[in-house]
């Protein structure tokens, strides 16, 4: 049976894993290569490395961090942050990534998604969307921010996800800015809205705090995968224990692995 995936995310700034709350107040959480290996051994189904300052500071992704991390990791490994062109993507693939996540550059130039997909296949292109709630009640919608949550765009998150799929995206990584680092649950409403608009897998992100949150986002949000960072790095919720708890709740998991 195809399992739901648990993805460990490493937010990297200046070569170190950091963790913030609602995209700011960054604190050091360790070495990316070491943490990736630890998470892989603990049962993570995939690892995502996001160079969170790459776009803002206009520097290229930290290729040797990618190379060092990829060397020992034999599960899918995604790298995002600062990928603005096919050449940027190629450098990251050459360093050992299996997939790239594009965000701001795809918002500015959606055809970038197709250019990378044409060369490396759709399965290698994840479009990352940083979404936030706008308005209340019937007037509620989900907006999209660019450059690491710094700039609001005029786009609607659900419509953008559907457009990204048309452009050749193989998966959507959907982060709720409202829930990021809050540990009070994923935004299931946002996740469900995007899942129903696309036919490709959707990875829910932002808000993981306990096993119950994962159960909710798989059952009510219909997510294909769920991503978390700090609860794994800080050892609040060991991945193995989380997967066993989800399995007991009837969510298909790769466990033991």
């Amino acid at each position, binding site marked *: *049976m*195809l*399992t*739901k*995936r648990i993805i460990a995310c490493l937010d990297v700034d200046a070569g170190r894993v950091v963790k913030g709350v609602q995209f700011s107040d960054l604190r050091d959480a360790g070495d990316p290569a070491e943490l990736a290996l630890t998470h*892989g051994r603990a049962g993570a*189904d995939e690892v995502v490395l996001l160079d969170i300052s790459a776009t803002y500071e206009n520097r290229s992704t930290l290729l040797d961090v990618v190379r060092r991390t*990829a*060397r*020992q990791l*034999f*599960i*899918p490994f995604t790298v995002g942050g600062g990928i603005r062109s096919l050449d940027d993507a190629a450098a990251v*693939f*050459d*360093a*050992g*990534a*299996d997939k790239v996540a594009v965000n701001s550059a795809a918002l500015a130039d959606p055809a970038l998604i197709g250019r990378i997909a044409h060369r*490396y*296949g*759709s*399965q*290698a292109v994840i479009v990352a969307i940083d979404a936030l709630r706008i308005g209340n009640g019937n007037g509620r919608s989900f907006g999209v921010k660019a450059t690491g949550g710094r700039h609001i765009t005029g786009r609607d998150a659900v419509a953008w996800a559907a457009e990204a799929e048309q452009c050749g995206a*193989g*998966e959507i990584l959907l982060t709720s800015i409202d829930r990021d680092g809050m540990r009070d649950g994923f935004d299931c409403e946002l996740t469900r809205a995007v899942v129903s608009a696309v*036919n*490709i*897998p959707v990875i829910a992100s932002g808000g993981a705090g306990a096993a119950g949150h994962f159960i909710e986002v798989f059952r009510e949000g219909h997510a*294909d*995968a769920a991503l978390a960072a700090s609860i794994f790095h800080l050892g609040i919720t060991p991945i193995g224990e989380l997967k066993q708890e989800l399995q007991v709740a009837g969510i298909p998991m*790769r466990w033991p*692995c």
Partner: protein
Amino acid sequence: MIAIVDYQAGNLTSVKKAFDHLGVEAVITSAPVTIARASKVVLPGVGNFEATTALSGALQEAVVNAIDRKVPLLGICLGMQWMFDSSREAPQLRGLGLFSGECEKFHASVKSPHVGWNQLQVDASSRLLRGLPQDSFVYFTHSYRAPVVEATVGRCEYGGLFSAVVERGELFGVQFHPEKSGSAGLHLLRNFCEL
């Protein structure tokens, strides 16, 4: 030396990295002369079946010659599909026809592509899967799937059963990515290296 055939269909770094990890010499190549010297050949690849058009002429000849010399050949993902007769994804093209059957889309009842970890129904007679536990988890990412045929030694269930592993003599094909399937995948690659 293992030759990993580069026909511009995706990223081959991960496949090479897995062999490096196992301590086995592997080179990424599109040179027929290198393939001719190889003790084993790996045909990786992702993307559209049309990408296999790059496997024509001298490159295809080198692969076919290796097969004739009984050099073990491992097709991964698109590389495995190319070992079948054809694919609905690009019906105008022919595969190598080493395994009979046509690759088709998934049933409409399931999401496509099939992405993630799914389980293998292992046939105990398989050399490639020797020592791999029943229901091992491996990592898939594909939109077309090969039918279950006589040579099928590993099945997977996703909107019906399909061929996850095929094997006949020195010919081997896997639909999933052993280089991305954790310890189960490395185990399979080690089996291939030890053939």
